[in-house]
């Protein structure tokens, strides 16, 4: 396995808040990495730096050898290959489900309308929402909206998927339907970085758990050892809170 995402000495602050304080992380192709940590620990900032929704103060990030952090790099091209799923879904409310999914393939990748439609229908089927093709986003439940958001990101045929607390805004009974889609995706070999506290997902699909606190990576390990025998005191205290 080759290193796919390489983050080196990432530093980012918002005013006086030090969100990232020298983070090094490399992710292999096909790896599923779960990032956990208390709020304000920098985990979302780290994720959002990967497609430059946040700009680092210093440090570097490369995806598949392409620099994200270099000012001269073609960030739009990089973003096309990095799918992102947000806590608040962010579906486009003025477009029907199917148009949410086909918009970017048609306008950004210049795909034909028919080809984009076929891909969109295949992905809707994959997330179990074929019958919602012509629904408006506000007619869907939160779980359904998030599954459409995943399909929308997948329609760009990304090489990696970023999930920023994808189930935090969902009612408990809807979490599973979203996690199931994510678990399927992980089993198909998608490279995934996920900020989430879903321990069920961690055990079912994660290759590695990363615990962040105060802008730094405190500990990382495969799920089995991470939960059974965490090395660091801070990790143990955090796990006591969420388990």
């Amino acid at each position, binding site marked *: 396995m080759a290193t796919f995402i390489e983050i080196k000495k990432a530093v980012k602050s918002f005013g006086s808040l030090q969100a990232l304080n020298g983070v090094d992380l490399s992710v292999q192709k096909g790896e599923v990495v779960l990032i956990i940590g208390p709020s304000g620990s920098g985990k979302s900032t780290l994720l959002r730096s990967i*497609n430059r*929704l946040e700009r680092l103060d210093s440090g570097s990030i490369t995806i598949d050898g392409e620099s994200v952090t270099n000012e001269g790099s073609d960030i*739009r*091209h990089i*973003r*096309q290959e*990095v*799918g*992102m799923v*947000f806590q*608040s*879904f*962010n*579906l*486009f*409310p*003025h477009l029907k489900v199917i148009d949410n999914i086909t*918009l*970017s393939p048609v*306008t*950004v*990748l210049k795909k034909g309308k028919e080809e984009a439609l076929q891909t969109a229908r295949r992905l809707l089927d994959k997330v179990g929402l074929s019958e919602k093709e012509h629904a408006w*986003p*506000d007619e869907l439940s939160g779980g359904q*909206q998030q599954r459409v*958001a995943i399909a*929308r*990101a997948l329609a*760009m045929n990304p090489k990696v998927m970023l999930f920023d607390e994808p189930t935090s805004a969902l009612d408990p009974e809807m979490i599973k339907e979203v996690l199931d889609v994510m678990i399927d995706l992980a089993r198909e070999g998608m490279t995934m970085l996920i900020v989430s506290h879903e321990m069920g997902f961690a055990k079912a699909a994660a290759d590695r758990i990363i615990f962040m606190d105060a802008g730094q990576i405190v500990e990382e390990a495969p799920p089995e050892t991470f939960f059974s025998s965490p090395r660091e005191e801070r990790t143990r205290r955090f796990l006591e809170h969420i388990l």
Partner: protein
Amino acid sequence: MTKGSGRSERDSKNPARPTINVTDGTLIPLKDEGGVLSAWNISFFGAIALLVALPLFSPDPYLRILSFVPDGLFATFSVTIISICFALIIGLFAGLGRISQRAWVNRIATVYVEIIRGIPLLVQLFYIYYALGPLLRLQGPPAAILAMSICYGAYMAEIFRAGIQAIPKGQMEAALALGMSRSSAMRMIIIPQTIRVILPPIGNEFIALLKDSSLVSILAVSDLLRRGREYASTSFRYFESYTVIALIYLVMTLFFSRLVAIMEERLRHRGNVH
């Protein structure tokens, strides 16, 4: 003109449903003020009844006045509609300028809005027609349209700015994350959602502009008010002339404010909900 366009920040009641609230002093009927005896019904149908009854029972001078003023009605509407179109174009660009990340674009747009909102429309009309008259050499109607467009463009800019800022930040982020450029995200994602939010305030501006267009009668534009004044000064029927003029303005603004209210209601049903 009293306008609260500065107070049009995002409504914090429900972050998922952006609404902006730009009031400008026109009477917008509320739904729960219903009933036959609502303020709107009394004013609107009362005004129409008077406009029908007065000429019927007293054709001289009312019927004469009514047949004298329609030319002015045409001028009033031409000035209003042409001005609102230009104001929308100016407002869109100035509004985008107000939220631009380029400092100098932002500064130019903000200075424009500040200057224009700080000078009364009547003074702006005088300025363009008389003070800049030797330079611009504009006739009354084009000068009126220019002044009204520039003035209302500044108010429209604030509506566009507030409307764009009312759209949740995640919409732009989602579009960028999908590889769209900032400008196509603006065009395909943000502006279409903004239009639903700003249509009612734009309707209000239209009504305000319709009323303010009476100011152009001082620039040798034969609008509704000026036609009334012309009739009054030749016939010395001041009370009757201005009564008819006032009633016609009232019927028009009440009619359009009802339209805006209906539009607002419709938009609420198919709104910007996530």
